[in-house]
């Protein structure tokens, strides 16, 4: 286990390094960020001054070395737009994104597992067929359009739920969260459901496939033969065994949720990291783009590690040493 974690960590480090180089050199090729800060009448001298102030006059490898040195110390450069630490700006918006992604994950489990298990237990029932058809739809529906339709129906036509922002937030361990206030919960529900839609379909499919496979196993037959109630067989014997693929995939998909929150946050004006990156791309705010990417890579590396460890706890047959990283 320790060996595995050490090996994985060193591998992750290489990935981070390669990504930092790719991202940095990629972003370095983009247009000319000085244009944003200078008006058309700026003299050549002013231009040079700005370039020097931003450190853009040095060769790229010096810029990169400096960037890397600073990054290790947790300094990913100052935002051109906000004139603050880009890492700080992202950290400020991170809780909103994580809250949204976690809420979506919870919704995916709450809706997905019961529906999937039901569809797996009674595959011929009309309701099961409807659920499966719905899950195909869930895969095909473009997230942003569903978000718009949610706003249309629930905010504009029915007026039940608000459509923009986070609402009132409460402080939890010093982090501002929405789900502790009623107003915040109302604001959270639509974006979270929108983000969760794809994952709900995924969980339904996984749970259904798992159920159909597990139901015919000997230990289920044995549990029934022992005279256990159907409820106990389903909730203890069956659930435990379908959870392995569900947990793995959901863990891996958590990164996807964070990436896809870019779309949901834009639609619902949710003040998270995703909205920030879209704004930053539009203003060519390079330090923020770079910092966002590095953080996303880090998040992915950590998620993958956690999933692998969780996997081994849930399924003792898996030996971590054998898992290919």
């Amino acid at each position: 286990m320790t060996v595995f974690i050490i090996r994985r960590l060193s591998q992750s480090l290489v990935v981070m390094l390669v990504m930092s180089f790719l991202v940095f050199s990629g972003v370095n090729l983009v247009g000319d960020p000085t244009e944003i800060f200078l008006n058309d009448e700026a003299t050549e001298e002013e231009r040079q001054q700005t370039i020097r102030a931003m450190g853009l006059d040095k060769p790229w490898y010096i810029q990169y070395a400096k960037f890397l040195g600073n990054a290790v110390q947790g300094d990913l450069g100052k935002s051109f737009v906000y004139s603050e630490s880009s890492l700080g700006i992202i950290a400020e918006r991170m809780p909103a994104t994580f809250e949204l992604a976690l809420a979506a994950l919870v919704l995916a489990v709450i809706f997905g597992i019961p529906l999937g298990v039901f569809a797996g237990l009674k595959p011929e029932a009309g309701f099961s067929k409807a659920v499966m058809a719905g899950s195909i739809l869930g895969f095909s529906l473009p997230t942003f359009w569903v978000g718009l339709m949610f706003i249309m129906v629930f905010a504009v036509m029915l007026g039940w739920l608000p459509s923009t922002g986070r609402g009132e937030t409460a402080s939890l361990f010093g982090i501002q969260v929405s789900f502790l206030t009623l107003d915040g919960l109302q604001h959270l529900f639509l974006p979270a459901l929108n983000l969760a839609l794809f994952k709900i379909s995924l969980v339904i499919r996984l749970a259904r496939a798992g159920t159909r496979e597990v139901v015919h196993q000997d230990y289920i037959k044995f549990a029934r033969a022992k005279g256990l109630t159907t409820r106990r067989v389903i909730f203890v014997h069956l659930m435990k065994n379908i959870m392995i693929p569900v947990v793995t995939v959901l863990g891996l998909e958590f990164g996807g949720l964070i990436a896809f929150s870019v779309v949901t946050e834009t639609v619902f004006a949710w003040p998270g990291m995703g909205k920030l990156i879209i704004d930053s791309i539009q203003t060519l705010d390079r330090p923020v783009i770079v910092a966002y990417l590095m953080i996303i890579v880090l998040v992915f590396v950590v998620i993958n590690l956690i999933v692998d460890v969780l996997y081994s706890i849930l399924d003792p047959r898996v030996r971590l040493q054998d898992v290919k990283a």
Partner: protein
Amino acid sequence: MSEAIESSGPAPAAGSVGVETPFRRFVSDFFESKVASMAAVVLGLIVFIAIFAPFISPQDPYDLAQVSILDAKLEPGTKSMDGWTFWLGTDGAGRDLLSAMFYGLRISLGVGVMSGIVAMCIGAAIGLAAAYFGGRVDTLIMRIVDIQLSFPAILVALILLALLGKGVDKIVIALIIVQWAYYARTVRGSALVERNKEYIEAATCLALGHNRIVFRHMLPNCLPPLIVVGTIQTAHAISLEATLSFLGVGLPISEPSLGLLIANGFDYMLSGKYWISFFPGVALLITIVSINLVGDQLRDVLNPRLQR
């Protein structure tokens, strides 16, 4: 079996005349499923609309002489100043929404299919090379594929477009870079199986060149899974392009795909004018669903392990 085919109606290969070629068998297998047949018909219609949009649209939505701002934001079914009907209403600039959607479909489908084909060619070539040469080449290529696939497509595309800027060519490039890895992995998987078969050994013994063996002998046998992945990926590409255009990092305003039409409608939605976003979204949804259904059926038909 022949009865089942005849009862399924629109199967073109229903007649049992002639020899059973692999293609005929494929066609009759494909149309066995009613849902898939319907999806294929719908998809055919969509492709037809996309290709012939200029000839079947009631209006050329980008000809300023035909568009009147006085017709802006009309509800579906209202009559225009000239007496004909806007079946799906008009958008903020007074364009007939149905016509705008036909043109949008053309762009969405064009971008999706073009990027899909190029990505398939590049991915297939790289995947074949990885499987054929093996060893270090294989390890290196597959490591790159793994790393790329560990990041969500939308994120990679978003960053690429941030670097490249807007434009049809840019978004096609971004979609190709996002997609090639899927094709490479698929082809490598089936090529690894094919590589150890006798006919490849025979070809090697005949001292045929690498290119000939890879492209004339291995590639044709790796095609079925490639076609399946290609269909599904094209649907993904269309959806991704719409999303990116909606976010304002995809196509420029001058190339209004379905995604941009939806984005334009966003501004009017809060005042209750739902149709500007709603109908293009429905068109997008129908396109994606029908491609996915056709892809699912292709997977079942082309998979030899599921041969009935």
